[in-house]
């Protein structure tokens, strides 16, 4: 049971794990901060529904690194695209500005210079354009000067059928 004078805030993730975090870390989560301010001083436990315990682990890692001035060492390379998406959505829900910027940059880095086919394949996105729509878009985007595509255009033949 957390008393009002404690410096730790209890956060309960979607999978039922309770994390006791420093008040300072909780402050970086604007959603949590709003809950604390809205409720009484004696808040017992804050549920964070869209966040899993493995997300909290990474959040705590990031916090520790940034406090030590080493936030540039934080990396999400080991996450696959779906895991990154879930983490991004969790951090978005918690409204954590700095970490959110880091993650959107990570996504932008994964999109950099990749062909449209590659992006669809590795981000699991379905092409919902009609062939005519898509052909019209490709023609319009003449000016993109897309440069080197690292992966060849996939499914392009199928599109223009």
């Amino acid at each position, binding site marked *: 049971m957390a008393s009002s004078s404690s410096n730790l805030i209890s956060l309960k993730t979607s999978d039922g794990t309770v994390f006791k975090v420093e008040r300072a870390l909780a402050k970086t989560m604007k959603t949590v901060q709003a809950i604390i301010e809205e409720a009484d001083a004696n808040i017992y436990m804050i549920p964070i529904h869209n966040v899993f315990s493995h997300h909290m682990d990474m959040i705590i890692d990031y916090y520790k690194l940034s406090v030590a001035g080493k936030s540039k060492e934080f990396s999400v390379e080991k996450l696959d695209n779906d895991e990154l998406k879930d983490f991004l959505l969790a951090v978005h829900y918690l409204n954590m500005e700095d970490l959110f910027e880091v993650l959107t940059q990570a996504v932008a880095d994964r999109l950099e210079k990749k062909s449209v086919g590659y992006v669809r394949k590795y981000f699991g996105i379905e092409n919902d354009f009609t062939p005519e729509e898509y052909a019209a878009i490709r023609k319009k985007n003449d000016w993109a000067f897309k*440069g080197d595509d690292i992966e060849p255009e996939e499914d392009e033949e199928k599109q223009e059928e």
Partner: protein
Amino acid sequence: MKHWVFFAASFMVLLSGCCCKFTKKREMKKRDEQVSKDEKQRNWSKIPTQILELILSRLSRADFYRFGEVCTSWRHVFKQSIIYRSPSPLPSMPLLLLYRLHLFNDIKTGLFSLIDRKMYFPRIPFFQGSNLHCLGSINGWLIMIDTNATRLSSSSSNSNHHRFPSFFFWNPIPNARVMLPSRINIPYRANWYKLFSKLKASSGPDSPDCLVAALFTGQHNIAFCRPHDESWNIIYVENNNPNAVFADIELLYGKCYVLTETLNYRNITSILVYDLQESYSSSSPPKAKVLISQLHQQVEYNSPNIRDLIFQNHQLFFYLASDSISGILYLILIIVDYNNVHPIEREFIVYKVDNFNNVPMLVRVMDLNGGILFLSHRDSKIVPSSTLTGHEDLIRGNNIYYAHVYPYTENCPLMPRIVKFCMTSGRINHIPLPNPELGSEPTCLWFNPTIW
């Protein structure tokens, strides 16, 4: 009795207070659960718009466009950003527009990218027909002349109703045009597109202060205008002074700076200033003020080798450039060696106009305040290196990228050349172009397409 009522009332208040808090908590939990359900169903195509916009803002121009081709929901976010002009993609290096390349008997326009060293040929014909010519560029706009446009002069000062060309700003991506005046009070000529050797604008036409200045080929006059003027205004060389022939122009903060030279020996003589903005507000023609005179002496004083070089089959090229952020006017001297099969740039010397005891003079500088200068015979642009993203070598500040199409000589066919000069190290690197064949009268200029 009273006490009991009071007690009951306060108890009710307390209870309702607790209930309120309790329902609030329940509502919040419900909202969280709903959000949680939604988010679980979201794959990458359905993540919140807000997140997609932030990702978009971190993409380069090419990636930005590809983003809009992935699926309909991403395309929607992409299209909204174009309509609302936000977020914008990361700024990128200008491309070299190589105009009038001759490819398989077809006049084409190519765009060369410094980033991947590739030449691009837009599928949509860039200039349809041979009546469209590009004279300059600024901020994603090309300044064009259409020699086929038939605009009859309604002024009685022209006795013959000749066709005048139309001049306009053109952004090829949204295909937007802003017209410039077509009336220009000069005698009729056959080759309109050769009228101006250089055309500079102070900003894009969407800015209220947009000024356009043009240098006539050979005749050494200047014309200037704003997008909504009725006609161009012309400045003539005063008293036909042979020592004050106009060689180059540059616009900065509403003033037009003119580099003058002597007619015969291409010795630069002075920098003049015409206050165009003041001329508009006072409705009187601009008068020349001498900013710096005896320019050649100042240049030689700073670099004594020049006089020797002139006699060794070298040529000197002078260009004006300005940095609108720092307000600095630069004079660039390029020494080109014609002793070999093809011209070789040997040295770049950069001066800035500085004030010593309130007297403007040339001072040699070894940096551009962190900027990168893109220079060609048609235009000069200084871009702050800090705004660009890309490979370190490419976007390093205090570099000059110089592109030039050297005129045909016996030993050297028409060819464009790009060199990169590093002001810090003094090294000059030639950047090879993928062998284009050139058509008649090719030209090149730096162009940075913007999507709106």
